[in-house]
């Protein structure tokens, strides 16, 4: 593995470049096809509202995948991500309009471990509210 960030250059508190991502309805359709998760609440407004949701919601695993990019794009080698965990705290509501939902993802080095590993704490927000809590990734730097 070949991370492009050196362990020696990183300190606790180092901020990763943030990402701003737009999520639109067609992204959920594409993710459904690629992942195999065709749960109807991720594409039918009729059913989503029937079960009490405000509108169609994004797959939690889609949000988790997007949030990982803040780490993999920083480290340069996606294979350097060793451990990744999240809690889904709030659904990402995706209206069927041009704006969709706007997800902001940031990351900060929380801890330096042995073996050139660091723990990154990840924040993912829509409209200022966290959609993931306790999101952490352990990556091996070079």
């Amino acid at each position: 593995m070949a991370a492009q960030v050196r362990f020696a250059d990183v300190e606790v508190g180092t901020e990763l470049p943030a990402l701003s991502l737009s999520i639109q309805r067609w992204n959920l359709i594409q993710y459904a096809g690629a992942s195999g998760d065709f749960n109807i609440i991720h594409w039918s407004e009729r059913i989503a509202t029937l079960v009490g949701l405000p509108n169609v919601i994004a797959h939690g695993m889609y949000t988790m995948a997007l949030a990982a990019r803040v780490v993999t794009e920083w480290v340069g080698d996606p294979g350097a991500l060793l451990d990744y965990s999240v809690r889904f705290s709030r659904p990402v509501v995706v209206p069927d309009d041009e704006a969709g939902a706007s997800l902001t993802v940031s990351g900060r080095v929380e801890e330096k471990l042995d073996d050139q590993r660091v723990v990154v704490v990840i924040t993912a927000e829509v409209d200022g509210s966290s959609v993931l809590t306790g999101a952490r990734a352990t990556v091996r730097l070079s």
Partner: protein
Amino acid sequence: MPLNPDFVGRSFPPSEPYEVGREHIREFAAAIGDTHPAYRDAAAARALGHSDVIAPPTFLTVVAFRRPNAAIADPDLGLDYSRLVHGEQRFTHHRPVVAGDRLVSTSTITDIRVAGRNELMTITSEITTEAGEPVSTVTNVVVIRGTAPVQAG
């Protein structure tokens, strides 16, 4: 109806092998908007020290949908799908997933507990190659809304 607590500790037989396809990795990477060349170009992946194109960190979610989990399909567990919400997810990668891997998943229900009016069930899946090489440990916590046993008193 509460989940059947007898299922804690129960393991289920390994799934049929799932072969990781090059085009499926590309399709998954496109769906998450990730343009990294290691997902598409074997030479770029090799330059990073991998034997072939690798899959994005959350790609193994596809195995759960292509090889549905025997653990939660057993009617004796008493799971009501319509009440199920994804609570937590964790991937502990022992090595990256590489195109051509033939993976099997062996799942265990590791915990069932009550949280307020809900129940939380933890399923741990060991993903290995057919030959038994560890690839990833995937932990999934699902929330079943409103099924907690009614407390006496």
